[in-house]
């Protein structure tokens, strides 16, 4: 372990570590799967290259990210396994049973080392396993590859001892090629907004040379500094310009560095590996330093409490639930038919089961919705880091108060709210809070207070950002608004108007954009984002008492990809997941069968339903070509005819919950950005009602559609 203990790093580091563990889990899972596949390859002349490549990449990533969190034992283990895989890829080393076993032992140990960090326990020793890996890499290459690449093999063979030395003393040798520099990078939110973060800096450094070491340090005054040691032949002028990105550098003396980073475990002479020992006994050899719970630790890591799921998969799940709901409705329909033919007691039993299923389906649906919810504390915690940064930059004394972190909010909302919240917090600090001396002069406590509060209010989430600073200078805002021509002379400014002015594009009361709040998203973006998410923003401010923003957001938002179509002169949105196919149909191709319209489709026929007719809208006549959505499957397949499709959009689904507008066939509404509401079709309900012949929502408020 490196000297910096990541546990002291506060919430930012905790978050950082969470991400690290999650990423490790992913790669270790991949590696485990590939190891099993690799075992099958033993003894074959041609090893599956893609398998080796993927494992190599996983270990490479594990090495990189382990170094970022300062877990050098994991870094070394991953490094040696990566080296072995590199050798395998080049056919420099044979793949034998012992090789696979060494990889497995190494992977198990790697898991244990990572699990130990997670459980804040001492890590098991790695010397024995490392030695075992080293021994395998230096074993002579198999005959067949020697014949294939005789010349390469020769040089490889002669290089063998030296390469071994390279591995044992890897960094110090590479230093000889050029110079070694120590870079220090201090991340800030402003930088990360420009895309400059630890990862991008790391990538940048990898481009100019070899990354020998990467260590995070937690600074006493708060914040984190990442230290990178890079060996590069590049001229200083290449990176001299990086100062602006908070990336400083200084040359490192070779010897000093070599001594400094040489891990003690590698300094010990290689232990002759005993090939026969299994993975478990290999780690047991280390003895003393190993924690007694090392073996279960591996399974601990595998069963991490956090699962990362792509939102798209949840949407899939939601779609399946929707189909279940339709199926159940069909079942309900069949049950009604059955009533006459079945004994009442039996029928009642069936009916009860069906109703229980309906309830369970509703619970299931809500359960899936809940999965999308995350605690708002996630973004609040990040604000701590931001405030700490701002405090240092501005020299102000700031106390951050967080309330209601456990409040849950849709994951999608959280991501979109990050920017606006950042901006409001920065505003509170740089515009709102006074300096210590100003505060003391006014009899205020020297430390300014910024409060972030979240709470649930019905179907909404309230997020409040308050400071106890000087308040918005209404006169100054008004004066500037008049100067910009936003405000007529003599018009009074109240809080609503004040907020409108502040959110006007290009409005900023500071003539020179200051570092903290004059850049990035402005108040106009804040206002727009909140509005787009279906929320509202309110402001209340009073002189010398502070400013208080209240954001009100819907608890959850479903986002869907939708096709936008026009029928009967109106626009409608259709969730893309329900559309099997979109076809263009010539009016002349439509056949009328009794009172149904059909077209030929694939091997059979497709019954058409005209959306305009279904909704009692005026139909556009004389159209030679129109579009049809193919929905449903098998015997249920249906063509929903519209005049034309005008595009595909990601839409925010807004509920239409008022009983006055809850009608069958309409799932909700969305706004495509022009202030007009577009209805979202509920295809399941449409299909269902079509089988029944008419569109009715069952609460008695709907009219039957016009007869066809």
């Amino acid at each position, binding site marked *: 372990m490196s000297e910096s203990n990541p546990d002291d790093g506060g919430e930012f580091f905790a978050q950082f570590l969470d991400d690290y563990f999650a990423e490790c889990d992913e790669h270790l899972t991949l590696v485990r799967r590939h190891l099993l596949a690799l075992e099958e390859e033993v003894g074959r002349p041609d090893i599956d290259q893609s398998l080796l490549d993927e494992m190599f990449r996983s270990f490479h990533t594990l090495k990189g990210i382990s170094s970022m969190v300062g877990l050098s034992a994991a870094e070394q283990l991953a490094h040696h396994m990566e080296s072995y895989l590199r050798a395998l890829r080049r056919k420099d080393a044979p793949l034998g049973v012992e090789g696979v076993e060494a990889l497995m032992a190494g992977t198990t140990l790697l898991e244990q080392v990572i699990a130990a960090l997670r459980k804040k326990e001492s890590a098991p020793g790695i010397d024995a396993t490392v030695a075992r890996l080293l021994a395998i890499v230096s074993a002579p290459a198999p005959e067949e590859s020697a014949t294939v690449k005789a010349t390469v093999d020769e040089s490889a063979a002669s290089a063998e001892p030296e390469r071994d030395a390279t591995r044992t003393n890897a960094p110090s040798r590479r230093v000889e090629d050029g110079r070694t520099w120590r870079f220090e990078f201090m991340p800030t939110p402003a930088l990360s907004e420009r895309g400059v973060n630890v990862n991008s800096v790391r990538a940048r450094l990898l481009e100019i040379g070899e990354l020998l070491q990467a260590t995070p340090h937690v600074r006493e005054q708060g914040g984190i500094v990442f230290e990178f040691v890079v060996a590069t032949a590049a001229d200083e002028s290449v990176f001299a310009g990086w100062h602006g990105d908070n990336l400083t550098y200084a040359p490192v003396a070779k010897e000093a560095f070599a001594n400094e980073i040489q891990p003690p475990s590698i300094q010990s002479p290689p232990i002759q590996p005993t090939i026969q020992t299994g993975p478990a006994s290999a780690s047991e050899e280390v003895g003393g330093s190993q924690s007694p719970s090392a073996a279960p630790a591996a399974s601990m890591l595998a069963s991490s409490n956090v699962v990362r799921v792509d939102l798209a998969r949840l949407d899939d799940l939601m779609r399946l639930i929707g189909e279940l709901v339709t199926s159940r409705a069909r079942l309900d329909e069949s049950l009604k038919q059955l009533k006459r033919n079945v004994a009442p007691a039996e029928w009642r039993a069936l009916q009860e089961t069906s109703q229980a299923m309906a309830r369970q389906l509703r619970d299931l649906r809500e359960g899936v919705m809940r999965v999308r919810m995350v605690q708002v504390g996630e973004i609040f915690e990040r604000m701590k880091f931001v405030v700490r940064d701002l405090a240092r930059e501005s020299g102000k004394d700031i106390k951050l108060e967080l309330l209601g972190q456990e409040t849950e909010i849709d994951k999608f909302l959280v991501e979109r709210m990050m920017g606006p919240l950042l901006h409001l917090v920065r505003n509170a600090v740089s515009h709102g809070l006074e300096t210590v001396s100003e505060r003391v002069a006014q009899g205020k406590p020297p430390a300014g207070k910024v409060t972030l509060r979240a709470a649930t209010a019905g179907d909404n989430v309230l997020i409040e950002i308050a400071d106890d600073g000087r308040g918005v200078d209404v006169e100054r805002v008004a004066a500037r608004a008049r100067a910009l021509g936003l405000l007529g002379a003599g018009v009074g400014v109240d809080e609503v108007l004040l907020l409108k002015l502040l959110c006007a594009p290009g409005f900023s009361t500071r003539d020179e954009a200051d570092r903290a709040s004059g850049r990035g998203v402005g108040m106009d973006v804040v206002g727009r984002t909140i509005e787009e998410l279906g929320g509202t923003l309110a402001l209340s401010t009073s002189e010398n008492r502070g400013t208080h923003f209240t954001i009100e957001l819907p608890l959850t938002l479903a986002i869907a990809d939708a096709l936008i179509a026009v029928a009967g002169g109106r626009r409608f949105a259709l969730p893309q997941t329900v559309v099997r196919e979109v076809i263009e149909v010539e009016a002349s191709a439509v056949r009328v069968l009794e009172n149904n319209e059909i077209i030929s489709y694939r091997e059979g026929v497709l019954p058409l339903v005209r959306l305009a007719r279904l909704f009692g809208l005026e139909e556009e006549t004389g159209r030679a070509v129109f579009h049809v959505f193919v929905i449903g499957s098998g015997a249920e397949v249906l063509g929903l005819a519209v005049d034309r499709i005008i595009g595909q959009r990601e839409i925010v689904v807004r509920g239409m919950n008022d009983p006055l507008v809850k009608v069958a066939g309409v799932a909700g509404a969305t706004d495509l950005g022009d202030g007009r*509401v577009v209805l979202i079709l509920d295809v399941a309900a449409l299909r269902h009602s079509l089988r029944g012949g008419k569109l009715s*929502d069952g609460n008695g408020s709907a009219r039957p559609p016009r007869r066809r």
Partner: protein
Amino acid sequence: MMRWGPTARTAAAPVVRITMTNIQNDSEPFVLFELAGTTYGVRSRFVQQMEMVEHITPVPNALPAVEGVVLARGQVIPALNLRVRFGFEKIPYDLRSRLMVVNKKGRTLGLIVDTAREFFSIPDAAVEPPPEAITGLSGKYLEGIATIKGRMILVLNLDEVIDIGEEQSTAGGRAEPA
């Protein structure tokens, strides 16, 4: 003192604040609106905002009085045509037409009225129950009648106005206007 939460928002509505200054202890501010030549009043604490009538999206198969849905502060709300609701002849919207967004019983709705612009403080004592003679269709929607300085103001019973579902089940389908 800083205001927290919803209080801050309601108090922030500019029009409401102006009338707040006129409040006496025994009276309440009303928003006055016109419908078919008659003046109606609705308690301004239920009125969230006032908008021009534009961009109404019709909802298929909704009740005749429901013109459709509109976007109000990011929320999709029903727009109810009060003329149709009260059984008056429907007229096209013009520049004077207003969408009055009201909050009642946890619901948010837009009411389309001929015009609305005045705030008026009505003393509690001035509101009298509607006379027997008009307890017909429109009488049902009235909470009372106030006569101030010769002006007659019909005070709206908002609950009855927005509660269409119940009426449907009792009164059945009403005749649709052409």
